[in-house]
């Protein structure tokens, strides 16, 4: 195809006061940086994980320690024969990822040989490997839980901040060391199924139905909504915005007091979660209750309770049925191959891990660093508790080491907040891809997590995307539903979703999960068969289409749309303007 989308518009200046040494971190193959001339020679995709944009500290730490350390080291260790992990660039506050190809045939062959040794070793020892990594991280988490941040001597805060960053970096090593081989195993099985003539829409279903820590959290949250209704508190929730609910419930007294106690008990166990992957810029549910309150508020708008047990049973029945359908069309010899692949994937179940690991890694690993930065802000008498998050890493260490937080640094933070807000407003117009767009990609993370495939690559390059009335994507969760579309930029807007409406967004992450208890359907620009939305869509029985490419461009907020999750099709039935005029 050879289509090149220029990057010029995004080169040049970055965050006010940015200097290249702010990105002076170790990396394996390619370092993160703002877009530079020449970057159009590589392929870049807009990363849906951070649709709000990233503050200077969030941007540099995630890109350096997540992508350019975590993915690049993991793809050397496994290794990926033709790939060396993911690197990234910034267009304003928005992160673009890029797969790093390995093109030397001899090197690819040598790497393939190593994969031949390492992948079976991983699969044979998957449980021990993952649990050891998880337990190591939980031990570090417990260490931070034991730290009284307010009592740490100021002289030691810098050390605590360093520890917080190392916790995140180590978590990213473990994360991608496990994710790459699991994905490779899953995608190999997916390809084998396709070659066996199995309907590939069934493949995700083969592995669904196993309970995860995130699903457990959702059930507990839903349980709180049921408790609120039974305690006669539905009206209090209806009358107040999420941010005001704690005060309103305290004032209400009576049954509300007990409910608040239950709510705080819930937060003590499940509240150590932020609303995006590894974003130091976002609060946990304990720091900011409004998302938890907002979810419960919308649950209460729903007439019928979501039946988690029934959904779980259905997911299991659907799984068994899908396996039966697939096996019945195979010869005995093919069944032996299929059964081997299924067993390997049931043992190292990627869809399960993809949901479960978020509880232990993605949603909380930045929280200790965030708390340390907030404590530093308090000690230096900053105007806002999040000021340190608008500094670059060396600047934060300087402040922790005693450099006065005043004058130039303070005004830089003010400028950078403006810069963040400016780019936040540009998010919906950011190109989905930049640089030299290929016809297909080989990095498993790009294929499965981002849903980048030949079809979605064509879709995002369609200049007429905004006027499309039909979209195709991955048939992620079956069923057909019609409803009003709510096009959300981030989970901050989840409260806009009314029951029975259809969620349209770039992609979802675990903090979006509660929405699936009330929506009629979901459509995402990105994400594959095993993206978060696909997994949760199947668990909740919500028709879902992922990797639609340009759903957030083509579908307008308030449009009436039909989502066919069985066939991966989305149709815009009526535009919001026409509905209003009718």
């Amino acid at each position, binding site marked *: 195809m050879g289509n090149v989308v220029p990057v010029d518009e995004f080169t040049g200046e970055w965050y006010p006061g940015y200097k290249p040494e702010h990105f002076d971190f170790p990396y394996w193959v390619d370092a993160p940086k703002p877009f530079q001339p020449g970057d159009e020679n590589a392929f870049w995709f807009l990363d849906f994980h951070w649709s709000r944009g990233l503050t200077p500290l969030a941007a540099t730490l995630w890109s350096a320690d997540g992508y350019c350390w975590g993915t690049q080291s993991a793809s050397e260790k496994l290794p*990926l*024969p*033709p*790939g060396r992990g993911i690197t990234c660039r910034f267009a304003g506050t928005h992160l673009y990822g890029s797969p790093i190809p390995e093109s030397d045939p001899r090197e690819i062959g040598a790497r*393939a040989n190593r*994969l*031949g040794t390492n*992948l*079976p070793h991983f*699969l044979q020892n998957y449980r021990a490997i993952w649990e050891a990594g998880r337990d190591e991280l939980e031990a570090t988490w417990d260490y931070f839980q034991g730290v009284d941040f307010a009592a740490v001597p100021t002289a030691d805060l810098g050390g605590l901040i360093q520890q917080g960053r190392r916790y995140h970096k180590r978590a990213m090593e473990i994360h991608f060391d496990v994710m790459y081989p699991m994905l*490779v*195993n899953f*995608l*190999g*099985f*997916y*390809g*084998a*199924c*396709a*070659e066996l003539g199995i309907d*590939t829409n069934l*493949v995700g279903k083969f592995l669904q139905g196993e309970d995860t820590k995130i699903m457990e959290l959702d059930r507990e949250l839903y349980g709180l909504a049921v408790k609120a209704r039974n305690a006669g508190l539905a009206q209090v929730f209806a009358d107040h915005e999420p941010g005001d609910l704690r005060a309103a419930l305290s004032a209400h007294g009576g049954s509300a007091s007990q409910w608040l106690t239950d709510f705080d008990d819930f937060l003590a166990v499940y509240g150590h979660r932020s609303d995006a992957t590894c974003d130091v810029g976002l609060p946990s549910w304990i720091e900011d209750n409004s998302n938890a309150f907002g979810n419960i508020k919308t649950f209460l708008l729903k007439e019928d309770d979501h039946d988690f047990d029934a959904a779980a049973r259905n997911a299991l029945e659907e799984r068994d049925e899908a396996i039966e359908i697939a096996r*019945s*069309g*195979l*010869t*005995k*010899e*093919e069944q*032996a*191959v*299929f*059964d*081997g*692949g299924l*067993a*390997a994937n049931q043992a190292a179940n990627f869809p399960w891990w993809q949901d479960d690991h978020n509880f232990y890694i993605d949603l909380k690993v930045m929280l200790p660093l965030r708390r340390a930065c907030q404590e530093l802000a308090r000690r230096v008498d900053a105007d806002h508790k999040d000021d340190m998050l608008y500094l670059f890493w060396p600047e934060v260490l300087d402040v922790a080491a005693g450099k006065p937080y005043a004058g130039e640094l303070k005004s830089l933070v003010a400028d950078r907040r403006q810069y963040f807000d400016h780019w936040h407003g540009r998010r919906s117009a950011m190109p989905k891809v930049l640089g030299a767009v290929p*016809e*297909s990609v*080989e990095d*498993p993370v790009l*294929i499965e997590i981002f849903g980048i*495939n*030949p*079809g979605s690559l064509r879709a995002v390059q369609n200049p007429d995307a905004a006027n499309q009335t039909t979209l195709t994507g*991955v048939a992620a969760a079956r069923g057909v539903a019609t409803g009003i579309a709510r096009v959300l930029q981030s989970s901050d807007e989840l409260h806009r979703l009314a029951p029975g409406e259809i969620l349209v967004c770039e992609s979802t992450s675990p903090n979006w999960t509660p929405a699936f208890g009330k929506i009629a359907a979901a459509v995402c620009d990105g994400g594959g068969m095993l993206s978060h939305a696909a997994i949760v869509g199947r668990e909740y029985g919500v028709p879902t289409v992922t990797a639609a490419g340009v759903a957030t461009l083509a579908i307008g907020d308030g449009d009436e749309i039909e989502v066919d999750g069985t066939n991966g099709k989305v149709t815009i039935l009526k535009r919001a303007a026409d509905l209003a005029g009718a």
Partner: protein
Amino acid sequence: MTDALVWVDDVDPDAAIAVAGSKMGRLADLYRAGVQVPQGFAITVDAYRRHCAESGLDARIDEVLAGADQEDVDAASARIRELFAATPMSDALTASIVEAYEELCLRCVDVNVPTAVRSSATGEDAADASFAGIFDTYLGVSGPQRVLDAIRACWGSLFTGRALAYRLRKGISHHDMPIAVGVIELIHARASGVAFSVHPVTGKPDRVVIETSWGWGEAIVQGLVDPDHVEVGKSDGRVLKYDVAHKKVVSAFDFADGRVTEIDMPAKLADRRVLDDEQIAAVTAAVTAIEQHYGYPVDVEWVIARHRRAGDPICIVQSRPVTVVATEAAPAAYDPVAVAQKYVFSGKGLPGR
């Protein structure tokens, strides 16, 4: 002097293909192997040779061919085929064919039994696929005179334009590939079809593939009807797939005209599933047994007779070697590294996306 006629159930198996051509020779071979085949006889290669020599046809054919080149093979073909139609058989040969036909009527307990008169060339569809199916077959030929005419028409089909062009290009003399003709009982077909002992496209050896429709198999063989498609696991006989097609045309016996011809499929049969599980098992058993007999993959044409009852074998009317071979051996066990290399890191994009 060798016999002018040989019966399928009575020919020396070692000489069958040499005297009766590959099609009839294989039928005789299947009969000996215990496969249910139709009754019939062949007018031998030798009888054809003698007819051409004694009637003066050889000289006249050579005369036509001497003036022919690649450009006007069709004109040459037409002239030679006219010569075959106009040249009578010797009285002795005519008498033996009529006698054999009457014997076939007796064996089938029928008057003027309808037959299939099939060309059975030497070399046809054995080594060179380009000859497969280009010689004539007449279905539903009934009565001695029609049988005699059909035999001469089959002889003439050795000189179709395509066959002539091929031999000219390759420098082969028609004397080197004489033809035999089979006269076999026309099985009254309820359903018929083809069956492959391996997948005809992928070459996968783990399955039998069956294509079938109502009536005679001509409409399937000639590609006039979209047949039902069935795949059966070879090792356990399980039906893996049954796709019912919308079958628009059927090869049926036209009693007025005395031959099998293609007519519109009756609406009530068009979308109906042709084979039940017992019939699928019978076809599978037959094609698997034939593959085992020969030791290489085969395709067969088969017929389910109207009078067939469950448990009876089905009738095989033709068998050929299959030339397709699997591009790669199917894996015996799941290998996560191999599938990753093949599907994830191939540079071709994940299949099924």
